[in-house]
């Protein structure tokens, strides 16, 4: 796409944009965002229907009690893991070469988590009772741990986002904001450490949600200490896909704006991290699947092959998860020749993200579709337009928040000055 330049402005917002940074005109910017605003309005309307009339607006039912929303929530929380993992690498492991991607990681993480929490609030039957989990917590429930950690981590992400927000050209002029931003910035390494701890537990507990389901032998896994194996698999898969998703977001922004925002070497670095972790995850998942097939499932009276006899959930889906969207992208991301080519690198990153989404889909949808009683039927489920529109609204919200952040905030170090000459530090 051609580079967009600042021209034809009547109503201008240039004083809010950092000095020396080129942005398209306000009217053109708003025009570009208009479709996303329309999608957001439709999403808010659909969500309003669900809140006002109840969850009968969805196509979920007593057997398919979880649906599109839970699958996509798990997906975007996994993809948003780039936020905590990049903070961990930069502040704890001192990998300063990843600093150029740090701010965008925080914004992407904030969007993913706030979007997921918004959808969860629609997805429960009594949203006004959400505080009950804090007041009457069941300490044995994985969902309690998820609720606590996601709430706290969203607060941490907000605190990490505020210093970026206060670096806006106009907001910096307010001395109190400047001092606040400076003080908050000092806390960022601490926040990164807290965020790592919280994310470790809630990413794991999201996997644990399914692993503890003794009544669903397809999902149930034996435990390591108190955690089922899915606890660890979810952490591994999230930190494997997070850097890939950051790479995809940054590459998309570079494509749309026609600017080089981060040094090319950074993509290779992110790809290597993602690829190595993906390989470790796939190895662990393969071992876990074999243990489930040979021991866990038969011990509960379920022949494992029964879980793969219902179309479209045959063995090809397992092959796709482990080989097509696992081993192949892991190889492409780590092999020097393919990693050196941007096309291969980004395609592999997209495949890695799709693999993690497929894993969340299988655990949510296949688990519920499969029969448990011998006379149960294999069930299907198609989300209603309200479910699809609500989630599309969240995607629109993400695009709008990211676009506004990119326009008015220094997301990339290069934005501080001339973006065509990137130093990388």
């Amino acid at each position: 796409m051609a580079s967009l330049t600042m021209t034809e402005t009547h109503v201008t917002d240039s004083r809010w944009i950092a000095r020396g940074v080129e942005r398209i005109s306000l009217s053109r910017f708003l025009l570009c965002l208009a479709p996303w605003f329309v999608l957001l309005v439709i999403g808010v309307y659909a969500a309003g229907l669900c809140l006002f009339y109840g969850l009968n607006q969805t196509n979920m039912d007593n057997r398919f009690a979880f649906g599109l929303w839970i699958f996509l929530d798990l997906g975007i929380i996994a993809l948003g893991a780039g936020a905590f993992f990049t903070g961990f690498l930069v502040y704890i492991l001192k990998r300063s070469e990843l600093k150029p991607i740090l701010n965008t990681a925080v914004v992407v993480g904030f969007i993913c988590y706030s979007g997921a929490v918004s959808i969860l609030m629609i997805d429960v039957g009594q949203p006004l009772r959400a505080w009950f989990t804090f007041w009457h917590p069941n300490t044995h429930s994985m969902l309690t741990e998820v609720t606590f950690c996601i709430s706290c981590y969203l607060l941490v992400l907000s605190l990490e986002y505020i210093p970026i927000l206060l670096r806006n050209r106009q907001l910096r002029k307010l001395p109190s904001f400047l001092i606040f931003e400076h003080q908050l910035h000092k806390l960022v390494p601490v926040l990164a450490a807290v965020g790592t701890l919280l994310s470790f537990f809630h990413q794991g507990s999201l996997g644990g949600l399914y692993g503890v389901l003794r009544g669903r032998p397809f999902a149930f896994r034996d435990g390591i200490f108190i955690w089922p194996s899915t606890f660890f698999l979810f952490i591994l898969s999230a930190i494997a896909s997070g850097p890939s998703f950051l790479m995809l977001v940054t590459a998309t922004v570079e494509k749309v704006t026609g600017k080089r925002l981060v040094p090319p070497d950074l993509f290779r670095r992110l790809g290597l991290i993602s690829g190595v972790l993906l390989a470790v995850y796939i190895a662990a998942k393969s071992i876990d699947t074999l243990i489930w097939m040979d021991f866990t499932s038969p011990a509960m009276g379920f022949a494992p092959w029964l879980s793969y006899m219902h179309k479209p959930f045959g063995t090809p889906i397992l092959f796709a998860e482990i080989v097509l969207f696992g081993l192949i992208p892991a190889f492409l991301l780590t092999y020097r020749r393919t990693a050196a080519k941007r096309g291969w690198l980004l395609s592999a990153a997209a495949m890695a993200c799709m693999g993690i989404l497929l894993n969340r889909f299988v655990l949510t949808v296949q688990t519920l579709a499969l029969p448990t009683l011998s006379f149960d039927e294999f069930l299907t489920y198609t989300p209603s337009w309200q479910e699809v529109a609500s989630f599309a609204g969240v995607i629109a919200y993400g695009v709008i928040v990211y676009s506004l952040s990119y326009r008015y905030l220094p997301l990339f170090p290069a934005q501080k000055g001339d973006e065509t000459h990137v130093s990388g530090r």
Partner: protein
Amino acid sequence: MSARYGMVIDLDRCTGCGACMMACAAENNVPALPKATNRTGLTPMLVRKVSNGRNGVAQREVFIPILCMHCEQHTPCVSVCPQQAVEVDRATGIVMQMPQRCLGCRYCMTACPYHARYFNWWDPAWPAGTEKSLNPGVAVRMRGVVEKCNMCHARLHAAQEKAAAAGKREIDPADYVPACVEACPTGAIRFGNLADPNDPVTQESHSPEAFRFLARLGTEPKVYYKSKEAWVRALAEAASSTEVQHG
């Protein structure tokens, strides 16, 4: 002394008349839901028809009343609820649901292997005039919460109050009988205290014809089934799923 209430359902006696479902709905103020489908209705007691999958004279069918199995061990729905809206009553063994504390996250529904939990997808409503027939001892549930069989807990309360008024600590077993048991015209559903070895229901649960669904999950359900037919008993295990068809 704590009780372990449970049931034995003789499938050879069940005619599929649905009286248990009607009695359950009337006793527990289950609302009329004209828009509900067979996947979104409220049926704490649900009679399912299962065929042996054969044709002609070899064809056999059985009616299986499905309700909460009141699992004793690793109770799947209890450990998952984030806000303690589900618990196993240590005094009775009944798995209790507290709709007034339920968030409506439906995690317990995904955890239940028997699909015996139901979500209130709609506001409760009754045809004009019929609300006068509601049971005053049972609170109606609001939209957005999960409910299930609680073995007619209101009847247990009434029995306990009666015993207390008479100065007794233990209830008279004849005073506590769930509505489905009372309504069954063939006496197929029997209710008793499984902790009492002399209770006829306990003895019946030890019969070689008695079985429990998905017993290998290790959840120790307290609802037993009974049949002289081998193919019906084979339904207990998931592995037989290729043999039968759901009617």
